[in-house]
């Protein structure tokens, strides 16, 4: 499932972060606005298209306790946002809490992996359902086929 663009816009605006979309290959992100980052794209067409890749930026804002920053990283694939990662960087405990909560709002695409290939001690979610429940299900299935 692809995460639509608007999710990302809502996320970034939600923290009022002035985040620049600077390519990770270009090194440190500057603290520009997103609009300016679009303008920076070489030979900007009328309909700006972004190259695939991971873009990172640091947003800075003024909190009641002073200036704080938050890291944002966005992965684009075929013009779609495939992943958003928010890294809390706040020093003030209250800001830290808000940033962590904000970061937790990220909806992501998760692809299951075969459990067989994992090194784990146990599995959660595969627990036995009550014996009576399972027996009743078998009975219902039998009834359904009768």
């Amino acid at each position: 499932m692809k995460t639509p663009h608007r999710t990302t816009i809502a996320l970034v605006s939600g923290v009022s972060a002035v985040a620049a979309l600077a390519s990770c290959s270009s090194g440190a992100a500057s603290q520009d606005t997103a609009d300016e980052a679009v303008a920076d794209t070489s030979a900007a067409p009328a309909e700006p298209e972004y190259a695939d890749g991971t873009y990172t930026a640091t947003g800075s804002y003024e909190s009641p306790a002073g200036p704080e920053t938050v890291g944002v990283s966005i992965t684009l694939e075929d013009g779609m946002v495939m992943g958003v990662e928010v890294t809390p960087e706040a020093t003030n405990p209250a800001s830290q809490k808000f940033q962590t909560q904000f970061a937790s709002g990220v909806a992501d695409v998760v692809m299951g992996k075969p459990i067989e290939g994992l090194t784990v001690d146990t599995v959660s979610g595969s627990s036995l359902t009550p014996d009576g429940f399972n027996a009743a299900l078998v009975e219902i299935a039998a009834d359904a086929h009768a």
Partner: protein
Amino acid sequence: MRTPEVSFDAIGTRWSIHVDGPLDVVTLARVRSRIAAYDAVWSRFRDDSVVARMSREPGTYRLPAEAGPLLDLYATLGRCTDGAVSPLVARSLVRLGYDAGYSLRPAGEPEPAPAWDDVLERDGCTLVVREPVLLDVGAAGKGQLVDLVAAELRDCGIEEYVVDAGGDLVHHGGAAFRVALQQPGDPTRALGVVELDGAALCGSAVDRRAWGDGLHHVLDARTGRPTQDVVATWVVADTAMVADGLSTAHFFGDPDRLEAAFDHTYVRVHADGRVRYSLGLPGELFG
């Protein structure tokens, strides 16, 4: 501590206890008796339990000490979910067929749970039951029992253990325990791995106890209908009771509100495949 020292079936689930040495018979006997005592009070699947008596006869019922924190937790979860989580949802479950005999056949239209104050009065661990009411602590009771079993182990001098009740578990001491989060609907795949270290992990998934036509065991107490948006949750918290209760609350509640009320991390899997999770989750989700 990788392989369980002892495994057994109780309260309808598989228990595994991992300790750093052999588990002596006295400790095991205490564990089994703790579980039996809990079941005798709270099980709605047996006629002779205290909650079964409450469902037949009004009166004043004195509950054991664990009732205090358990019912307090339910009250807080109810407030955080605007009433969606309630220990009085059992009648709605029975209505949909999830009864003591597992008829699994709906007996009528969905029915909202009664309001607590309309049927019950509580003073500490004493309940005054004004009209017969079916109390179901299924959302947090199993977690609490995991905590109580862990307390028995500590009382017997065991410092390093994992108590696992069918995927709801608590870890204490020793190396972290790696737990795969099973992908809803596919027992062979995992969505991620949690590194459990001195904490509890509980999960809830609707696919495990579904009996057709969108019927499953996680009901919204306000409507008596099964929830549709979230299909699986996991919560890591200090105690299994809180983790267990929150794993149900995350089917309904706003995660930010729940995070403000309880120190925990979570994973919520939505019906459309979206996953929402805490950044602080100890472990990883596979992207």
